[in-house]
């Protein structure tokens, strides 16, 4: 027998301790799991609980307040009076209502009694008739017998317990006809009785409605009964995952392919659940007594209007706000702030970014001011010059495509033209006529095809013409630098861009030593040297200054730097313009900024000169109406690609302004000579650098007209995976929340798109610091954009953050097919040409001019007109003409076509036909006008009416012609309103009538007085002392004047002029 080992672990050792420890651990684990279950992994449970408590307390208070108010209102004499009226009326209607009720009850009983019999009879007779119908006409005997069967069937009688009154019933016999007529009779009687009851109840109902109106006016909030219901729901809050689930459109209920949108945000953000907090109610943290609490996501949506437009049930939260709408286990995950979630929650300053996904086709999105600023900056500061962005001005790309198409069609045509004689020959030589005709037919078809190619090319050329007109560049044309600039200024500017012009659009490049010289040399040597500019006589700088400040230049241009800056930011600041620009060039530019030195031919890829025109015996003249190449007939570039319009100034005025501008210099400006610019050895390197830095993205440069954009496309930049954003040596800092300046980031790690965009835009060279590039051309090229403020930076970052590859289904994208589409399109043009620099277009929007010092106080009258009602005001046909030629004259150009009295000038923008079309539609859509416009027919004036209208027109109480221009220069010197002769073509009668009766409603602050008419018995009556004839007139006075205005002729007007006081005689009238 073996000996037992001395220390048998089974017998000698106790497992009590490990078991105890394990048991403890297990219990701890269970406790931990239970805790996690309730709190750790389900933070929303405690949020909902806390919300329920806070909200209940709030509601209790609210109910108390509401009840007190309700009590006050319900006991107020007005309420009691209204209520008793309503009750009396209802009571009065009751007896007759009861009688009607009884009648209806009887009818219903009768109907019920006969229903079975009637259905049976109808079925039987229907079947018999069918049997009769199916017998053919030829079988006369059967037909006859079946007809008899039908008649017999109709004679069959039914015994019905007919309720003669509500209490007694009689048994009566009904045949088919009687049943039928009884049934229709019951229906008719019943309908009449119901109508009678409605009529009977109407006074009572109206009184009830009045009472309800009174209550809702006095008690605007939710009634206490509703609040009680909410209190009940919140006090016993049902803690559960609150989920929005949108199935992909078009899928069935049983679809298992995954939902389109799953959102659980409301599980924590309980205040946004409309079941608990109805949309009519606004709930803030302060309301809940949690104003200072950092962990109380309970407020309702601060802009309920946005939720009304974008219903929560369809959109949820994360499509607009970012974040991971499905994650509910922690705040961080729910908000998507972890490394591999592509769409982290937007910070409040970037909220507008959420609009871009669906509103990518907008240039201006309502309620998204930050995003709108971002888009405008992206376009106007020239980001678009290097970075393509879908939907932003891509006319240049369209043009290239267009040209390729034209070239290809021309090749096709050439080939076809070779084929035609071949086919004809084949026909001539064919063995038989049929074959010959086949070949002849082919030749003829090919001929027709060639002509249809011609038609296609013609259309493409027209489109090119339009597109060419629309192509604008952010920076000036560098072909003209030799004619335009002081030579030494160029290298200075390249190196010290922001010193010369702090707010310039031109970004600051990071040039290596020697690069500036090479670039300057290339640009100088590559520029055009002629034809020489016309030599200009000097102008008057004092007059020039006045013109500059009054003609409207300052809606786009500014003067003075820093705090002294006055004017718009759309175009360059001109404080030091005199240091760089040549007088003769400036005169040409001010006189017509679109004038080119030489037209450019994209097919020959060169600028044409006088010699090209001379070859064809043509003068060297080119403009939008003469834009075809003398050599090959293709469309030329005949305009400077600038958005600056032609102000239609006289040459003297242009000289005055240019004289003023050339005098604007910094007192200490000094330039060192730059002879290296003529060094031909630098040119090649300069060209390479100009291409490298992508200068041709913003500037027109000889030989580089077709250079593409050098930067990354940014359309979907916001959804670029984080690994593809190169943080370079800052990757670790970003992940650990250390800012480039070494300080800790207040929001922690910035290793996300927002962090990248902010730092890249603030300092594009940042992510290159410390990197080694043996080849200097491999360095990051992006120059430092001139971002003027934190707001501008944030606007651009917001725009980029929002630029995501859409994750929502296509039907979420905002691509309206109705008038909103015209608005969407129109804004692109209105912002492209800075219409909003001079005009107020949207309600509430301010133009740049409205804030200029020269248009304050009483000088407001000199502002360009507000266009908030333009679409309703003017005839679109007229607007087309006006936009094409705002002088409204082919010869007299130095004037405003409508407001000849304004100093500020509506310039000629040389808009393309396409742009004019879009703008007209835009204005009409903004004013909800039907398309197309059909002018209403106006009742012609009778002689008596014309006499009355004349009297009213010249009445001292309504001195229309005192302010309105008449075309008589002496009179118009003091005019402040347009000529009535324009009305017929320009205005819409309905708008004119509204304008006459209350202009201040349409344009607050207008010089046109309100209250000229008063409303009297459903018509407008002149409010002042009336000529006797008019006093007896029973028609509408405003309508009379409108009809008179729309029939006004020059002869009639000059006759009126004889009768009205001249405007200079101050206000006395001709009494």
């Amino acid at each position: 027998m073996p000996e037992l080992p001395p220390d048998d672990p089974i017998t000698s050792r106790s497992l009590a301790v490990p078991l105890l420890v394990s048991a403890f651990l297990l219990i701890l684990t269970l406790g931990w799991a239970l805790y996690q279950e309730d709190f750790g992994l389900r933070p929303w449970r405690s949020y909902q609980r806390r919300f329920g408590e806070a909200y209940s307390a709030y509601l209790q208070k609210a109910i108390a307040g509401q009840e007190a108010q309700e009590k006050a209102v319900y006991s107020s004499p007005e309420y009691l009076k209204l209520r008793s009226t309503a009750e009396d009326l209802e009571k009065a209607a009751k007896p007759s209502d009861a009688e009607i009720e009884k009648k209806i009850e009887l009818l219903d009983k009768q109907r019920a009694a006969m229903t079975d019999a009637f259905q049976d009879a109808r079925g039987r007779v229907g079947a018999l008739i069918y049997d009769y119908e199916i017998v053919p006409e030829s079988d006369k005997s059967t037909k006859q017998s079946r007809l008899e069967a039908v008649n017999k069937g109709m004679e069959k009688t039914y015994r019905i317990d007919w309720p003669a009154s509500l209490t007694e019933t009689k048994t009566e016999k009904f045949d088919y006809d009687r049943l039928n007529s009884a049934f229709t009779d019951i229906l008719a009687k019943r309908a009449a009785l119901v109508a009678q009851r409605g009529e009977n109840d109407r006074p009572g109902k109206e009184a009830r409605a009045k009472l309800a109106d009174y209550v809702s006016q006095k008690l605007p909030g939710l009634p206490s009964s509703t609040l009680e219901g909410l209190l009940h729901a919140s006090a016993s809050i049902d803690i559960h995952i609150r989920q929005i689930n949108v199935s992909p459109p078009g899928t069935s209920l049983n679809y298992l392919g995954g939902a389109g949108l799953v959102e659980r945000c409301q599980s924590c953000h309980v205040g946004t659940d409309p079941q608990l907090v109805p949309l009519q109610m606004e709930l803030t943290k302060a309301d809940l007594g949690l104003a200072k609490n950092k962990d109380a996501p309970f407020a309702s949506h601060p802009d309920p209007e946005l939720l009304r437009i974008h219903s929560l049930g369809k959109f949820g939260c994360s499509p607009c706000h970012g974040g991971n709408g499905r994650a509910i286990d922690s705040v961080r995950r729910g908000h998507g702030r972890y490394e591999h979630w592509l769409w982290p929650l937007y910070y409040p300053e970037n909220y507008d970014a959420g609009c871009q996904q669906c509103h990518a086709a907008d240039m201006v999105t309502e309620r998204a001011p930050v995003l709108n600023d971002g888009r405008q900056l992206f376009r106007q500061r020239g980001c678009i010059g290097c970075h393509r962005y879908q939907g932003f001005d891509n006319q240049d790309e369209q043009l290239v495509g267009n040209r390729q198409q034209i070239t290809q069609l021309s090749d096709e045509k050439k080939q076809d033209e070779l084929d035609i004689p071949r086919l004809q020959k084949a026909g001539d030589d064919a063995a038989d006529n049929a074959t010959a005709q086949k070949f002849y037919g082919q030749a003829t078809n090919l001929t027709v095809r060639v002509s249809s190619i011609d038609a296609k090319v013609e259309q493409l050329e027209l489109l090119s013409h339009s597109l060419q007109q629309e192509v604008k560049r952010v920076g000036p044309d560098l072909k003209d630098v030799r004619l335009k600039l002081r030579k030494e200024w160029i290298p200075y500017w390249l190196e010290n861009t922001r010193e010369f012009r702090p707010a310039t659009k031109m970004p600051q490049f990071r040039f290596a030593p020697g690069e500036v010289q090479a670039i300057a040399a290339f640009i100088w040597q590559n520029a055009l040297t002629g034809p020489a500019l016309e030599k200009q006589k000097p102008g008057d700088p004092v007059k020039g200054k006045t013109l500059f400040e009054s003609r409207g230049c300052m809606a786009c241009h500014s003067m003075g730097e820093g705090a002294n800056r006055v004017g718009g930011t759309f175009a360059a600041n001109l404080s030091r313009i005199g240091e760089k620009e040549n007088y003769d060039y400036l005169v040409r530019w001010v006189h017509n900024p679109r004038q080119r030195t030489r037209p450019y031919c994209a097919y020959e890829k060169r600028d044409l000169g006088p010699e090209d025109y001379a070859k064809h015996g043509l003068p060297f003249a080119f403009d939008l109406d003469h834009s075809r190449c003398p050599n090959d007939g293709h469309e030329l570039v005949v305009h400077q690609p600038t958005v600056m319009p032609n102000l239609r100034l006289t040459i003297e005025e242009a000289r005055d302004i240019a004289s003023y501008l050339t005098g604007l210099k910094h007192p200490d400006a000094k330039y060192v000579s730059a002879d290296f610019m003529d060094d031909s050895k630098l040119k090649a390197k300069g060209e390479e650098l100009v291409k490298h830095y992508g200068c041709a993205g913003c500037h027109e440069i000889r030989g580089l007209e077709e250079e593409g954009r050098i930067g990354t496309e940014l359309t979907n930049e916001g959804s670029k995976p984080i690994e593809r954003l190169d943080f370079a040596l800052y990757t670790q800092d970003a992940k650990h929340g250390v800012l480039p300046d070494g300080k800790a980031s207040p929001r922690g790690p910035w290793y996300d798109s927002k962090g990248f965009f902010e730092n890249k835009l603030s300092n594009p060279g940042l992510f290159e610091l410390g990197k080694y590039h043996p080849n200097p051309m491999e360095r990051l090229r992006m120059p430092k954009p001139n971002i003027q403020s934190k707001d501008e930076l944030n606007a651009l970052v917001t725009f980029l953050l929002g630029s995501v590859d859409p994750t929502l289904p296509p039907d979420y994208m905002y691509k309206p097919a109705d008038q909103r589409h015209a608005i969407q399109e129109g804004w692109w043009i209105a912002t492209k040409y800075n219409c909003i620099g001079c005009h107020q277009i949207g309600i509430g929007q301010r133009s740049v001019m409205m804030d200029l010092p020269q248009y304050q106080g009483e000088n407001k009258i000199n502002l360009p007109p507000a266009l908030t009602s333009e679409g309703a005001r003017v005839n679109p046909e007229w607007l087309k003409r006006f936009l094409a030629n705002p002088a409204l004259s082919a010869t007299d150009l130095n004037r405003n076509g409508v407001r000849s009295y304004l100093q500020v000038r509506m310039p000629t923008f040389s808009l393309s036909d396409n742009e004019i079309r879009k703008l007209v539609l835009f204005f009409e859509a903004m004013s909800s006008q039907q398309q197309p416009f059909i002018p209403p027919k106006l009742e012609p004036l009778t002689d008596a009416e014309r006499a009355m209208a004349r009297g009213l027109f010249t009445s001292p109480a309504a001195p229309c012609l005192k302010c309105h221009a008449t075309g008589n220069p002496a009179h118009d010197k003091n005019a402040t309103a347009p000529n009535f002769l324009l009305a017929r073509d320009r205005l819409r009668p309905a708008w004119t009538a509204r304008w006459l009766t209350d202009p201040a409603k349409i344009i607050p602050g207008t010089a046109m007085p309100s209250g000229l008419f008063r409303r009297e018995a459903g018509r407008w009556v002149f409010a002042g002392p009336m000529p006797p004839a008019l006093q007896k007139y029973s028609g509408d006075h405003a309508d009379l004047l409108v009809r008179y205005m729309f029939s006004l002729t020059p002869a009639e007007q000059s006759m009126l002029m004889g009768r009205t006081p001249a405007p200079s005689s101050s206000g006395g009238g001709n009494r």
Partner: protein
Amino acid sequence: MKARYFAIAMIVALAVVGCGKKESEQAPEQKPAAATPVDMATVGSVTGSVTLDGAPPKFKPINMSAEAYCAKAHSSPVMPQDVVTGDKGALANVIVYVKDGLGDRSFDVPKAPAVLDQKGCMYEPHVVALMAGQELQVVNGDQTTHNIHPMPKDNREWNKSQPPGAAPIEEIFARPEVAVPVKCNVHPWMKSYVGVFKNPYFFVTGKDGKFDLKNLPPGTYTLEAWQEKYGVVDQTVTIGPKESKSVSFVFKASSGD
């Protein structure tokens, strides 16, 4: 962008393929067959006359008032030339030609062009006959612009304007056709006919109604006479070596009405 280039490349490629196909479809270059020699020692001829049986229809004079120049060019009224007769019913403007019987013979195309003149806004001659491939020279002798618009059935249609003093228009008709109507759309009364034949045996009668088909090799032929209003009449004739035969054609005046 890439997709667009690709699409363009595809279109170009397709166009090239398409054109290539067209070329291969085309008939191989046909050399004109060498003329079959005619033994001049044995040739004979067919002569005769064409007459109209019955009274010719009555026509109203042409109204040229639409164009002053044309009206002025004539001192007397101009009659339409649909039916022109001479003495004893002799019928002018009839083409008499060998329709059949020459077998596979081929003939040289004359180098000299057939001429169609426009004088006083009338075509002269009213009926032209030529060989397929022979040049037709259209001359404008007027001080007004005409257009020449043949409307063939078998040949290629064309329509060209000819201002006064312009160079003659030279065209050929490649395929035999009796006869191609020719119009001037500017002066709608102007009408002419061009008969196109594959052999040189054709004759356009004058006011005497006589015709003469020379140098016919011996054989049996179907002769046909064509008149613009009355259509065609044919006859068979056999000639031996050096034989000369006489044939007459009669059109019935009522037949065309």
